[in-house]
């Protein structure tokens, strides 16, 4: 069931010539993570902020759990939705513990003991030992640490929906990866519905079940990472997702895309390593190089039925095919 549905949602700021968000429609399934990507100014933040009604749409509607958000009390709505932004915005006059608990205090219904325990759990979760950090003030934390407190604060009420606007933007690569893994773990445990704006396509691929590509306020494509790599809607999407990058394709495209039936290997009769159909091209290639085998036999991951073979040549064919005629070997960053 769709948790959040956008129906031709449009926002045109007063005094601007074209809408910042232009008739965007799509669904986000309950418990899934949808990444919003696109160049700067493409309307990602505007789209996100219409969900918790920090911005009111010009037309169209957003439906959460079957209810039009415009018909809800905005304050009650916001209390049910976690919101994390790159600038974090911790309250300077409150300690870290007080900053984390403030969302729950506002929402109400928590006893002091439960809240104290919850705050410690959350600080632990985001990698800030509570004994050390609980009583500190925001200005005594690094930017990255503050960002983690921001995440803890949004999680305090355990909201079913999280809106995240470049939440890991200010983190170093290592901390960033830890937070991404943390988020994936949270997702496995509690299954929140997450709308996540990212400028890092690697991050989008890692965290997103669905990726929505926006350009000039329009939804250009919605799909899984593999969809975007294998069938980019246009050149813009292909560039954006790094469809030209051989490494990225190897990393994400599944082996079934590069199967062949009649090979030397099949003629030899089966003494080649076997692989399951959900493996990536990269895994297959590494295995081929490692074992020096001429081919791999690919089996369906559920039925164990033999589907075909994969060779370095078939991988190469698949990559060059996906490439079209160009062989630009650049990583595209946005």
């Amino acid at each position, binding site marked *: 069931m769709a948790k959040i549905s956008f129906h031709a949602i449009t926002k045109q700021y007063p005094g601007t010539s074209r809408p910042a968000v232009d008739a965007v429609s799509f669904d986000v399934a309950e418990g899934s993570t949808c990444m919003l990507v696109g160049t700067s100014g493409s309307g990602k933040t505007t789209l996100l902020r219409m969900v918790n009604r920090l911005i009111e749409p010009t037309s169209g509607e957003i439906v959460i759990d079957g209810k039009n958000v415009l018909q809800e009390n905005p304050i009650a709505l916001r209390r049910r939705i976690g919101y994390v932004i790159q600038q974090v915005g911790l309250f300077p006059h409150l300690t870290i513990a007080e900053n984390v608990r403030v*969302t729950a205090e506002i929402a109400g219904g928590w006893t002091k003991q439960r809240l104290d325990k919850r705050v410690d759990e959350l600080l632990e979760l985001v990698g800030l030992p509570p004994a050390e950090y609980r009583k500190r003030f925001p200005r005594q934390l690094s930017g990255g640490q503050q960002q983690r407190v921001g995440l803890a604060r949004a999680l305090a009420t355990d909201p079913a929906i999280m809106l995240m606007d470049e939440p890991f933007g200010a983190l170093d690569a290592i901390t960033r990866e830890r937070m991404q893994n943390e988020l994936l773990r949270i997702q496995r445990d509690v299954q929140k519905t997450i709308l996540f704006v990212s400028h890092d396509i690697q991050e989008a691929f890692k965290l997103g079940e669905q990726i929505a590509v926006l350009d000039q306020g329009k939804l250009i494509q919605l799909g899984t990472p593999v969809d975007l790599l294998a069938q980019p809607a246009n050149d813009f999407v292909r560039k954006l997702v790094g469809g030209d990058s051989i490494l990225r394709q190897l990393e994400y495209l599944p082996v079934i895309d590069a199967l062949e039936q009649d090979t030397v290997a099949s003629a030899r009769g089966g003494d080649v390593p076997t692989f399951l159909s959900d493996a990536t091209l990269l895994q297959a290639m590494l295995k081929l190089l490692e074992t020096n085998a001429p081919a791999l036999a690919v089996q369906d991951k559920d039925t164990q039925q033999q589907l075909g073979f994969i060779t370095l040549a078939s991988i190469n064919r698949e990559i060059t095919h996906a490439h079209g005629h160009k062989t630009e070997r650049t990583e595209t960053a946005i």
Partner: protein
Amino acid sequence: MNYLLQPYNYDLSDPASIPNLFLDHLYLVGITMLISLIIALPLGILVARRPRLYLLVITIADLLYTVPALALIAILITITGLSLATAIIPLVIYTQLVLIRNTATAINGIDPLLLEVGKAMGMNPRQVLLRVALPQALPTIIAGVRIATVTTIGIAALAYLAGQSGLGDLIFKNIATTDFDAVVAGGILIALLAVVADLLLLAVQTVLNRGRTSVSLA
């Protein structure tokens, strides 16, 4: 120091005794600060984020601030006579510049990002005011109140000229009779009151400023 040490100067039944003059002085300062805040707080909020209005109001407050207190009392006596009003009006006028300026600065200093964060987590307007806006603005407003209070404690001695009793009585009454012991006592008591008020308000300011950079002692 003799004057301060004589027990009969502490006779509560004598309206001119030290404790009674002290209370009168506190009363003058209290009323002045109350009226000052009632005027300056709304004005400061009004002119914040309105640069042209701010300039106008601050210029007027600044002009009034430059009129000597003695001159003001002299003029007022011809209008309001020897009354509480004649004593209080100059005092109120002197506090306005610092109070309006600090209030406007405090409001301007509220980070809009934090207001929005509060709103985004579901605070209602009252919660945004009490939990986000005021905690940010209060330290700067209190800093203004501190300066205004200390200044008022000093200038309130002039209330004697408007026929209002306070610690100024010790100075002005006894200068004529050259009882310098009493004059010094008046000076010491006023200074003491100013220092105590300053430290108390500094403490308030420090508490309100928690989590941010330390308060300067100046």
